[in-house]
């Protein structure tokens, strides 16, 4: 993986970014703990006592990780741009899928998502695509809502169908 001719973001950049991200998370935890009270009350430690030290440990560990990341630069790529494009081609549609779920319901969103994935990423024929894209949500409906009585999010279409 190291000696590819392709270009892409350096591993080092991502390592540094990750360490910073985790460090910020640690700071948020510390801030939250301070609000909850970090001292040792009359009845043992208060709500923020442990989270405070956990946050502190995160910050310290991230600082060390950051230092390490800064130091060793082996010129490795994190991933080639082509690979990242592949990854993003799943992340972005999934984000749209997840984001649209509260509005159009799980079933419709799933149909569109499966169809999209199979047709454009998988390159399947329309017939196969539609069979799976419709079949799966219908099966899900039967198993979850009918048998196990687990209500899943629904949208206007289900309301209109009266399901």
């Amino acid at each position, binding site marked *: 993986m190291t000696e590819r001719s392709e270009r892409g973001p350096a591993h080092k950049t991502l390592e540094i970014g990750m360490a910073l991200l985790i460090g910020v998370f640690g700071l948020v935890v510390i801030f939250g703990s301070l*609000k909850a009270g970090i001292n040792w009350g009359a*009845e043992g430690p208060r709500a923020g006592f442990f989270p405070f030290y956990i946050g502190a440990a995160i910050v310290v560990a991230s600082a060390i990780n950051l230092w390490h990341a800064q130091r060793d630069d082996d010129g490795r790529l994190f991933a080639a741009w082509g690979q990242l494009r592949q990854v993003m081609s799943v992340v972005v549609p999934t984000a749209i899928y997840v984001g649209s779920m509260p509005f159009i319901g799980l079933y419709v969103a799933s149909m569109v998502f499966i169809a999209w994935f199979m047709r454009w990423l998988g390159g399947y024929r329309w017939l196969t695509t539609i069979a799976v894209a419709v079949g799966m949500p219908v099966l899900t409906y039967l198993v979850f809502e009918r048998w196990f*009585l687990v*209500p899943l999010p629904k949208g206007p279409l289900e309301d209109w169908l*009266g399901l």
Partner: protein
Amino acid sequence: MKPSVLSVALAAIAMSCANSTASRAAWEPVRPVEFIVPAGTGGGADQMARTIQGIVTKHNLMKQPLVVINKAGGAGGEGFLDVKTSSGNPHKIIITLSNLFTTPLATGIPFNWKDLTPVAMLALDEFVLWVNAEKPYSSVKDYVDAAKKAPSGSFKMGGTGSKQEDQIITVGIEKAVDTKFTYIPYKGGGEVAVQLVGNHVDSTVNNPIEAVAQWRGGKLRPLCVFDAQPMAYDEPIAEGKAWKDIPTCKSQGLAMEYLMLRGIFMSPKATKDQVEYYVELFKKVRATPEWQDFMKSGAFNTTFMTGADYAKWVEAEEKRHEGLMKEAGFLASGN
């Protein structure tokens, strides 16, 4: 099976003829009804909800299924907020316990019982003071003496949750007898009872149903009940004693009374027909022998209230909790 469906249908028709002048039939659920439990699986509220679910299924009291869903997060706040935001959805009901009052007060989450539509009070749950049967205290007096004699803070009271009913009662006892307990919160009532059996705490205020098995097994001893009068059940449980034979705490010089609401609310903006439907449903549930058995096994106080009476009772109870929690210093510090 068939006749009961028919009779329910007939009853519904009869009711709609009698009640409404309009030609429209009375409301009925058209989808599965979600029955929210703002507490974990296995607790008192959960058991009651699942019993109701079982009774409804067995006697075919509803055409649509009743689905119990636990939403215990944030001391029940998760469940309350869920119902609060389901305004106008009549397919969602919630069973409550004292956390209806205590959770918003202690955590400051944006919720008040007035956000919901009251349906009915099903029963009141009793609280009993329990000690390990190996301990020498046979009466409240022995117990109070021992608690006072112990170095301050070394007498341990176990209970369910923090800043909830068990701790409120503990603070009440502390006030009444002027001593200091160390209150240790656990996750569930069953666990609390077992911690008492294992002598990891000195006393508990478990509900009858949580500790009755250990009483029958000769591991625990009830000292008194936190109610105005003794419980009504006179069937002997252990050592020839019945629930009825447990004296009230007040009569033993421990002036504290506490009963916990086991009631039903539904989502905001419910219509009168919808509330009426559920009230009738729970009336039918209460009439079944299974419900009677359940009440007996948990030594419940079977007061039933609906409508304005119920709302008034809840309102008074809310005031009382606010007072109790304020005194105990349990109110959220406004964050």
